[in-house]
């Protein structure tokens, strides 16, 4: 891959309801020299589009390459600047020989499906699994990882403990705003952000909607274009095209108001077990008329939800 255009083409060939990983070749030097690896994410908050996890890695003693690329606090970089740095990572020898990267594109459909599982799978779990899988993948491709730096929005301690347990040999640092402190995390952040931006740019609707990112916006619930999309692109039965994360409250509330109500089977939990126990007062209630109990249908029918209906003529 040598240009942003190739990145876009690569994204386009993937089904956008599934996840996929896009990664660079491993620079030879990274197989021998001890390496640091940074992890960051892009698109956690938006109601539209994929969330992308990015990792970048390079030899511990090659920090200067990252600085020359301009990997600083990625939040302070404009979109154009991020595109420019990523293009350098794809083309300049100094970078190609020292810095490798990988991006995990997590589809909005995967996010909705995970959060709406019978045993709910939170966004934090999805995120953590993605980060773990990326680190594993890089290690399996032969990179000599010794230090790992991770950016987090949540409390770092628990996350750090979990990663240290899985990767006991690495020196692991989990920190808030790590992308403004460690250049390798800034590089990871650029990989993630650029991938997410371009994934939205080339988004094609399998539902056949003739729309693009200039019409649905950045995906952040505060963006007026995104708001308009969430308000207007509703199908009474199916809700939204799968660009939307159904499990976001913005989408849930709008569907509650504007689409047909859909009720899924309730998942058994502790409360429902209690409901099945007869309350003690029920034993003292007077019997129904004539004292006769209404004849109940056999359990066979009840279990199968079979009832008597009218006959057709």
């Amino acid at each position, binding site marked *: 891959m040598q240009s942003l255009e190739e990145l876009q083409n690569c994204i386009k060939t993937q089904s956008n*309801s599934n996840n996929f990983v896009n990664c660079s070749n491993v620079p030879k030097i990274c197989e021998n020299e001890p390496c640091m690896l940074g992890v960051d994410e892009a698109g956690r908050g938006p109601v539209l589009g994929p969330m992308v996890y990015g990792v970048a890695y390079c030899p511990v003693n090659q920090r200067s390459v990252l600085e020359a690329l301009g990997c600083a606090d990625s939040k302070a970089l404009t979109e154009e600047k991020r595109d420019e740095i990523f293009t350098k990572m794809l083309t300049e020898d100094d970078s190609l020989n020292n810095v490798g990267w990988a991006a995990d594109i997590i589809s909005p459909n995967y996010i909705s499906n995970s959060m709406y599982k019978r045993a709910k799978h939170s966004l934090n779990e999805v995120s953590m699994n993605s980060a773990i899988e990326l680190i594993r993948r890089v290690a399996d491709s032969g990179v000599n990882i010794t230090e790992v730096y991770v950016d987090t929005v949540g409390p770092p301690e628990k996350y750090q403990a979990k990663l240290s347990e899985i990767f006991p040999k690495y020196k692991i640092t989990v920190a808030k705003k790590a992308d403004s402190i460690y250049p390798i995390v800034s590089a990871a952040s650029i990989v993630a952000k650029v991938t997410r931006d371009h994934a939205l740019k080339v988004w094609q609707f399998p539902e056949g909607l003739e729309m693009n990112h200039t019409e649905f916006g950045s995906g952040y619930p505060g963006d007026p274009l995104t708001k308009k999309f969430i308000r207007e692109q509703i199908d009474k*039965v*199916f809700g939204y095209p799968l660009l939307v994360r159904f499990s976001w409250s913005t989408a849930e509330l709008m569907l509650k108001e504007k689409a047909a109500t*859909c009720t*899924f089977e309730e998942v058994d939990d502790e409360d429902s077990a209690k409901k099945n126990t007869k309350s003690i007062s029920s034993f003292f209630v007077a019997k129904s008329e004539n004292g006769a109990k209404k004849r109940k249908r056999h359990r066979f029918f009840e279990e*199968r939800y*079979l009832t008597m209906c009218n*006959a057709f003529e």
Partner: protein
Amino acid sequence: MSIQIENNLKNTENKDIFEQRAHYVPCKIDEDGAANVKKYFEPYVVESPDGDMTATFRGHGLDGTKMTLPEGYRAVVATEAKKPLAEDADRRFQVAGGFKQLVYWNWDKKPSKNDNLVRALDWIDIAEALHCD
């Protein structure tokens, strides 16, 4: 009250109308009428070589399997032009089509013999055994 079904499609040339694609979705939808199944649902139906199917509805992951109706049975879709106001009035339905096969979907659970629809069809065999001469 009696219910009458009229079949105006008895002599139709179009055989496909009784072999439409049907999906049994594990969810109560408070809506009656046409749905954009082809546009919103079917693009995401994936069938693996061993016949397992996946799809998604309203953000919920679905697991599905193809189901054929029991021998000698077929499904008919009937519509009612206007529901009478009085509860005990006679009602008239028109046959609008039908299907012989459906895709049975479960929410985040592989379809199995223990699913209610599969078990409900047990009745057909039992009724046969009980009532045949």
